[in-house]
């Protein structure tokens, strides 16, 4: 009978349960996708050539486990907040504690198991389609990537069901230990923390010290190796929490005594914040960490995405060299965004390739500046023909235009126009192309490169032009780039559902409070503005903290993005896009909260 009643309670809150289930399912699906990438040995050994990459994958896994843990705790507290009133009523009516305990345990566990099962299914589907889509979008290819990987399925199932067993036990203890009254009136209980200046300052200082240690650990990843990550994770989390806890309370208390607090709803806003300060402190800590990790991961991913072409470009003066351009190739070339193009006539005889001095004077061969180059920008220069004769002629880039065999070249010689026209030999033209951005022209370049290779196959171990370097580097760093984007999106999704839970678990209490304000005669506009401020604070503080975290955290990637790459290069635009996304989140959250909480107008 009791079970039936409990089930009826669930039915009444179908929508809330759906959100809860959806959130947990997403979390399990994301974990599966990651576990699939991180535990697949064949995949890792094929893609993670750089030694630190293995650390990064491990880091990602640990991070995701911790985040999942926190996330489930959050979801669980939401579940509990939904249910404890019902169970309180049952107990008041005389239901046995043991029976209630069993029900709670079962309810949590069943919900968790369903979420895990659907989550793994979703994870499989997403691995197949979404991961493929993302890779395609980034123009990457990852070897040995498969959707179904049994060890990952097992890992996800074990972790999630295990976590839910823990959550169930926690709920069981919570419900059977709390008094009935406390369960019935949980919404009215306020945090009324005492302010003790000495303790407060101590907490703040400790928080800052912990943060400093965490930031240092990230920067010193070369020294600390794998240890850097757990150290940073623990210290930054605790540091952020302590700092928030110490400062928030003091700031709120200080503001409450100003005359600002006595205008309109400001006092109410401060009261709300103070009322749930510990709840909010935890919330802000988690959101700031998720924010930092999402932003950090996406920054690294887009850093690679943007900088790989640049890095590859720093190896050669031209992107691709095409011999005897065919009409079909010309069509492809026309589709490219060319920044520099030159065509030279070659005459090959014996071990020598002859060039026409007139052509080279008219179109001096562009070379790459190798000294004193500025970060993130490749510079090119040309020399006078006589200077080129002495130095540039021996440059790899120029020699590469005529390859004779593996690691052997025709010796270039420059002849005066008359001599050149008399010179015997196999005549052909070579066109060097440099595009503005290899990423942008990737598809056409791939095609063009293939047609060139079909006609003039390169000896193994030889490369011509930076496009070859680019494809090689994509194979090297593509895994990291993908990881960055993937984790970034995963954390962003979790951030969204964490905020969603905050809304749903806080809304019933707020609904009552805003109803009271409405009765007392508060204008709708004022209430709207008040809610906007409260939610705004929940978004703004972790946003700022998250950006600080990322600015320090990017240090960790310095060894992986060595000059001319840098994890800090061009972060401005990435940050702007991310902040834009975050702002959209804010607006959606706010609109939802308004809809749930604001009382309907009488007319």
């Amino acid at each position, binding site marked *: 009978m009791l079970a039936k009643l409990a089930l009826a309670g669930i039915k009444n809150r179908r929508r809330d349960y759906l959100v809860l289930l959806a959130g947990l399912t997403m979390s399990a699906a994301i974990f599966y996708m990651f576990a699939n990438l991180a535990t697949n040995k064949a995949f890792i050994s094929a893609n993670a050539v750089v030694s630190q990459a293995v650390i990064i994958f491990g880091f990602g896994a640990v991070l995701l486990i911790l985040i999942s843990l926190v996330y489930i705790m959050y979801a669980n507290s939401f579940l509990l907040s939904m249910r404890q009133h019902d169970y309180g009523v049952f107990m008041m009516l005389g239901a046995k504690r043991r029976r209630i305990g069993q029900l709670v345990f079962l309810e949590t566990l069943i919900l968790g198991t369903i979420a895990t099962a659907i989550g793994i299914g979703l994870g499989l589907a997403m691995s197949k389609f979404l991961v493929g889509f993302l890779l395609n979008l980034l123009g990457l290819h990852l070897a040995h990537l498969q959707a179904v990987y049994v060890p990952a399925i097992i890992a996800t199932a074990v972790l999630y069901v295990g976590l839910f067993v823990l959550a169930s036990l926690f709920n069981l203890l919570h419900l059977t230990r709390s008094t009935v009254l406390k369960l019935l009136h949980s919404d*009215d*209980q*306020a945090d*009324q923390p005492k302010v003790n200046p000495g303790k407060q300052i101590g907490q703040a200082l400790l928080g800052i010290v912990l943060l400093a240690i965490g930031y240092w650990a990230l920067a010193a990843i070369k020294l600390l190796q794998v240890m850097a990550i757990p150290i940073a994770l623990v210290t930054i989390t605790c540091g952020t929490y302590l700092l928030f806890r110490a400062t928030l309370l003091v700031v709120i208390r200080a503001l409450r005594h100003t*005359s600002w607090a*006595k*205008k*309109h*709803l*400001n*006092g*109410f806003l401060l*009261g*709300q914040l*103070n*009322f*749930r300060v510990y709840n909010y402190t935890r919330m802000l800590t988690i959101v700031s960490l998720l924010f930092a990790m999402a932003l950090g991961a996406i920054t690294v991913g887009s850093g690679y995405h943007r900088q790989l072409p640049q890095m590859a470009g720093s190896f050669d003066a031209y992107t691709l060299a095409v011999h005897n351009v065919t009409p079909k190739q010309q069509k492809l070339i026309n589709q490219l965004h060319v920044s520099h193009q030159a065509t030279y006539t070659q005459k090959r005889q014996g071990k020598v390739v002859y060039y026409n001095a007139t052509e080279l004077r008219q179109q001096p061969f562009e070379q790459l500046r190798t000294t004193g180059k500025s970060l993130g920008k490749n510079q090119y220069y040309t020399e006078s023909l006589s200077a080129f004769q002495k130095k540039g002629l021996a440059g790899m880039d120029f020699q590469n235009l005529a390859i004779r065999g593996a690691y052997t070249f025709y010796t270039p010689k420059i002849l005066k126009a008359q001599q050149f026209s008399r010179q015997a030999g196999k005549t052909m033209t070579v066109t060097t192309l440099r595009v503005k951005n290899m990423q942008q022209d990737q598809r056409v370049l791939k095609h063009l490169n293939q047609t060139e290779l079909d006609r003039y196959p390169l000896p193994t171990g030889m490369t011509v032009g930076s496009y070859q370097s680019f494809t090689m580097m994509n194979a090297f760093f593509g895994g990291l780039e993908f990881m960055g984007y993937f984790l970034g999106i995963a954390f962003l999704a979790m951030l969204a559902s964490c905020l969603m839970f905050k809304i749903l678990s806080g809304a019933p209490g707020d609904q009552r*409070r805003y109803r*009271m*304000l*409405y*009765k*007392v*005669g*508060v*204008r*709708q*506009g*004022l209430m709207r503005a008040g809610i906007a401020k409260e939610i705004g604070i929940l978004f703004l503080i972790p946003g700022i903290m998250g950006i600080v975290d990322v600015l320090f955290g990017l240090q960790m990637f310095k060894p992986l993005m060595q000059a001319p790459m840098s994890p800090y290069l061009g972060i401005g635009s990435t940050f702007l896009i991310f902040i834009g996304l975050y702002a959209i989140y804010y607006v959606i959250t706010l609109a939802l909260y308004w809809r749930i909480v604001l009382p309907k*107008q*009488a*007319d």
Partner: protein
Amino acid sequence: MTTKAVVSVSDLEKTYGKPNERQYTALKGLNFTVDAGEFVGIMGASGSGKTTLLNMLSTLDTPTKGDVVVNGHDVTKMRGNQLADFRAEEVGFIFQDFNLLESLTAEENIGLPLALKGTSSKVMDQAIHEVAATLSISDLLTKYPAELSGGQKQRVAAARAIVHHPAILMGDEPTGALDSTSARELLDLMTTINEQQKMSVLLVTHDPFSASFCQRILFIKDGQIGSELRRGEQDRRAFYQQILNELGTFNE
């Protein structure tokens, strides 16, 4: 003493439900007035339309037909912010379930109507301390509602209701959740406020004891005013007996 009406209700009707659905008429053409400085009670059994009436008067709900004029404002013609401002300035409320914001201290709760008006903090502090002294809750000001007893909470709510000197104080079963001692204290307080500040009071209740503090009582039955009692020069006990007698015949 002037006999200017603070509340005047004419032909008030309220029908719930959409025209093509099953409808229920809670109020069927009510007419009455409350004069300035009067202490009026509205009595009736559950479902007689007491709360509906109060919701109309306080603009929490809109009538289907008829007019409600409170302190010169035609309530039925107001919209949106006008309604909110009207509630904030002209009406003071005491609810059965206190309706205190548990995230604010007693002081902040009391100051809320003034904060909404944008009163300067100096004036606000003064007004809060004055009203707190009147209701003898000065020592409770820094406490949160969760730390107060029911009677104390209701006194804080009363302070909030009168701190901005509204035209009329409305109580919806304000003693409903209180023990008899606290209830008596609150009713004495309301009487004091009525007498000293000449504030009109409208009390909705089904409790004869509470009603006996009024000067005039309107009995509502099936959405209409059934009868009316005036206390006149009688003492409260005699009036109480009269109410009981009236209820005895009224409910038959």
